[in-house]
Every structure is written in C-alpha cells, then in structure tokens.
C-alpha cells in the first residue's frame, strides 16, 4: 500500500515538469494547411475502407473550412491555392465514395462564393458536380451547376440548360420551371424560351405554376412579335426604330401589346432588340401615400 501511495505521489510530482516541457516543446506549424490528397495514395492506404476514408477526408475538410469561416487562424484566410486543393480533395472523396452527397452539397453551395473570380476553379467545381450527378440523382447538383454558370460565369444559356435539367428532376421546386425561360429570354434566346415554356406547360398540372407559365408565355410571344416587327422595320428603313411607337406609325403593327407583368416593352439601344421594364417579374404598383 505504501509503495502504491509513493508511486501515485511520484506521478503527481512529475506533472509540473510535463506541463512546463509541453509549453516549450517545439511545434512544427500551428496553422493547419490544406493538404492535397491523392486518390491512389488514399485508396492504397485504406484497403476495404474506401467509404470511411472518404468520411474522414470530408471531416477534415469541414474542420478546415470551419477554421476559415470562424477566423480561428486570426487574420489568415484560405488562399486561392488552398481552395484549389480543397476542391481537388472533394474530387478525391467522390472517387472514393461516388454516392456521397454531402461533400457535393458543400462544394456546390459554399465553395463557389469563395472562388467567384476564378473561372478555372468554377469550371472545375461544375465538372465535379456533373460527375457526381451521374451517380446521385438529386436536382440540387444540376441546379448548382446552372447557378454557377449564370451567376458567376455569366453564361445564361448554359445556366438555363442545367436549371432545366434540375427542374425536371424529382423533388425540384416549381419555381425552377419559371426561372429557365426567363434566363433564356434574358440571354436573347426568345425562341428557346418560348419552346421551353410550351414544353413545361404540357407537363404542368393545373395550379399556380401553370398560370404563371401561361403569363410567361404570353409575355414571351409579345416580345417575339415585337422583335419580328423591328426586323421588318430595319429591312424597310435600314435603321433601328427609336421607339415602339414608330412601328405603329409605320403601319407594321396595329398597337403595342401589353406586358402581362405590368411593365412596358421597349427597344434596347445598341442591341436593337425588344425587352420589358418588368424583366418578366410582376411589377409592384406604387402605393398611394396619404
């Protein structure tokens, strides 16, 4: 018993030495860097453990992102090179476990905002998301791709293409069906916008979305009609009309149609194409002040 007590006391006495030594122990690097993982190395070092290896990599990725978000490293933030490695690590995770959705969700919803000016990385993100979409049939993956194209990369036609893909998948919210024609219309592809709206109208059951689509189609057909009139005017007079009223005056159209959204159609100078002040969204009527 005495010996046990002495042993215990000795352990207690050793504690301050250990604490002091731990304090002055040389540390390699207090900042956790984003290491680039290689698929083949991870695969070969984890026999039969592909999925747990993917889980651990994703945990590491969440931990590092958490540090970046909550400023754990004082003033330090991820560099573009580190974001590039991080995107590469998501690709490794997806190769290890192609059915793992969460890393793709993280990649699509968060990372583009951090690399918004880097075209190369945005395209890389899109390719990983599309690769993931081959195995995981979730509407959010093409949605993220479409969003990246139209919002960050400024390519509305490709954006609309992937949003259309997303809107046709199970569980997609109905508003996506309305977003697709608008993106096509905004990018000047009126015919494509009309065709998509027709297609969606056929598939959509009676309800608020169907009514919205009908309204959208009416506006798009009006734009197309006015566009055709502008082309006739240009071929006849060799110049762009200064306003839509000129089309009426020259007898090409009888009257300017009404925008079902409450806006007004006009000719965009420079492009000589027709658009509307409503931007294909309902225009709020100004409330009268008392």
């Amino acid at each position, binding site marked *: 018993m005495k010996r046990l007590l002495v042993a215990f006391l000795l352990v207690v006495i050793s504690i301050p030495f250990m604490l002091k030594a731990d304090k002055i122990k040389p540390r390699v690097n207090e900042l956790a860097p984003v290491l680039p993982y290689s698929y083949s190395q991870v695969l*070969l070092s984890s026999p039969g453990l592909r*999925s747990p290896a*993917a*889980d651990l990599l*994703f945990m590491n990725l969440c931990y590092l992102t958490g540090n970046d978000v909550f400023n754990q490293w004082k003033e330090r933030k991820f560099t573009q090179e580190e974001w590039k490695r991080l995107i590469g690590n998501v690709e490794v995770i997806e190769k290890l476990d192609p059915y793992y959705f969460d890393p793709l969700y993280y990649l699509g919803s968060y990372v583009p905002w951090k690399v918004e000016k880097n075209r190369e990385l945005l395209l890389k993100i899109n390719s990983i998301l599309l690769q993931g979409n081959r195995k*995981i049939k979730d509407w959010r993956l093409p949605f993220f791709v479409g969003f990246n194209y139209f919002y960050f990369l400024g390519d509305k036609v490709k954006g609309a293409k992937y949003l259309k893909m997303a809107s046709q998948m199970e569980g997609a919210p109905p508003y996506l069906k309305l977003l697709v024609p608008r993106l096509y219309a905004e990018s000047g592809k009126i015919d494509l916008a009309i065709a998509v709206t027709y297609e969606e109208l056929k598939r959509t059951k009676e309800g608020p979305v169907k009514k919205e689509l009908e309204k959208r189609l009416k506006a798009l057909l009006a734009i197309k009609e006015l566009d055709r009139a502008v082309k006739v005017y240009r071929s006849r007079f060799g110049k762009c009309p200064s306003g839509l009223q000129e089309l009426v005056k020259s007898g090409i159209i009888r009257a300017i149609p009404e925008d079902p959204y409450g806006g007004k159609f006009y000719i965009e100078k420079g492009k000589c194409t027709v658009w509307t002040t409503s931007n294909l969204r309902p225009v709020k009527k100004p409330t009268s002040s008392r």
Partner: protein
Amino acid sequence: MNPFPVAKITFRELLKEKSFLGLLILQVFLLFVSKVISNVVAGDTVKVAMDFALSFFFFTVALYAVFVSVGSTFRDLSEKVVYLILSKPLKRSDYVLGKFLGCTVAVALFTFLSFFIVTSGILIISSTANLYIPHVVVVERIFLLSLLVFLMGVFLSAFGILFAVLFTSQVLALISAIFLFLAGLELSPVKELVVSSKYVSPVNKLIVQIAYYLFPNFSLFDIKDYAVHLSIKVSPLFFALVFIYSLIYTSAVLFVATYLFDRREL
C-alpha cells in the same frame, strides 16, 4: 469415419474461447466509436456511422475467422491433441475437413451475432439522428452484406488452416493470413490504378494482372456501399457468382491443406 466428430469438437472448443465473446464485446464498443465519429461530420451522420460500423463488422469477422482457424489448428498440433485424434480410425484429410467445418459453424454463429449487434446499433443510431432528410436503413441489405461477410470468413478459415499446416510458427501463420486478406482486398484497386496508368511498364502490368487472377479476391465480399446507399443496385447473379467463386476457391485451398497435412511429419 467422417469429419463431423472433429467438427463438433472444434466448434465446442471455439465457443469456449475468450476471443468469441471478446470480439463480440469489441463490436459493441466499436458501434459507440462509430456513433462518436459520425457526430463530428456535417450532413448525413447516419451514413458515416454506417460506413464505420459496417467496416468494423467486416474486419472483426475477418480477424475472428483467421484467429480461430490458425489458433485452433496450432493448439491441436502444439498440445499433441492431434496424436490422440489421429490414433482413431480417421484419415488426416478428414481431420483437416473437420477442423474447417467446425470453424465454419463458429464463424457462422459469430457473423450472425455480429449482424444482430451491428444492425440493432445502426437502427438505434438512425432513429436518434436528427436529420433534415432521414437516412433510410434497409436491414435486408445489411443481411445480404452479412451473408457475403460469412462467405469471406469461411474462405479465410480455409486459408488459416492451410497456413497453420504449412508453417511451424503460429505468429507467421497469423501474419501471413492477415496479409493475404489485405492483399486480396487491395488487388482490385491496384489493378484499376496500374492498368489505367501510363507510367507502369507492360511487364509490371502483366504481373499485376496475373496476381489479380490468381490471388483470392476478397474485395468481392465487400458490398458495404450497397448496404449504405439505397441507389446502388446489385443483381442476384452477383451473389450467385460470388458464392460459386468462394466455393471453388475454398475447395482448392482445402485440397492443398489436406495434401500438405498428409505429408507433414508430426
């Protein structure tokens, strides 16, 4: 005489082993570990818990199969029990076959109990997880995985007996069996990487391909992803093919083991 009396004795002896209960308790502990690990990750925690729990299950059954087959055969040889058994009108090949059958039944019982523990644990974890989109756990899929894990255990038991007969050191036999298992798991990804690489010479590619065809392919028994992700489909033909493959290969291993044991000096 037939191999069944030896099988019966082997099975009874293995049930009394501490490793049987010890590894089952380890399974429960590893379930807690899986739960703790899954809490660290963002998103689908049930998926992560299942990944870990099923991996632990897979490796625990493999370890049990190796330990019991090597340990039991070596004990007979070192404690001279084998003399007593072979003094009866019993062929040496019947003794090897009896050992194998005894191990098979023990592995079957161990796999079944492990399946019960792991499935209960996963169902509890999934019912207590607070997920926005719930992760559906299909018990039938875990059961199908367990069937393949059992076949893998049987396959490994045959190798364990072969190595126990082949080597004079128990540690060497154990290590060889474990390394063979790991190599069998790795061969498929190694082949995938080597064949698609332009930096590997044609000779090395050929060596890897020959090894891929001749070595036991343990990665066939690993359908953990199928048990976790419901979108993965597996044809019933796959199960039939794996069963036939393991049956043929196990028979081949047992033939070699009986051949070696017939010629071994006791």
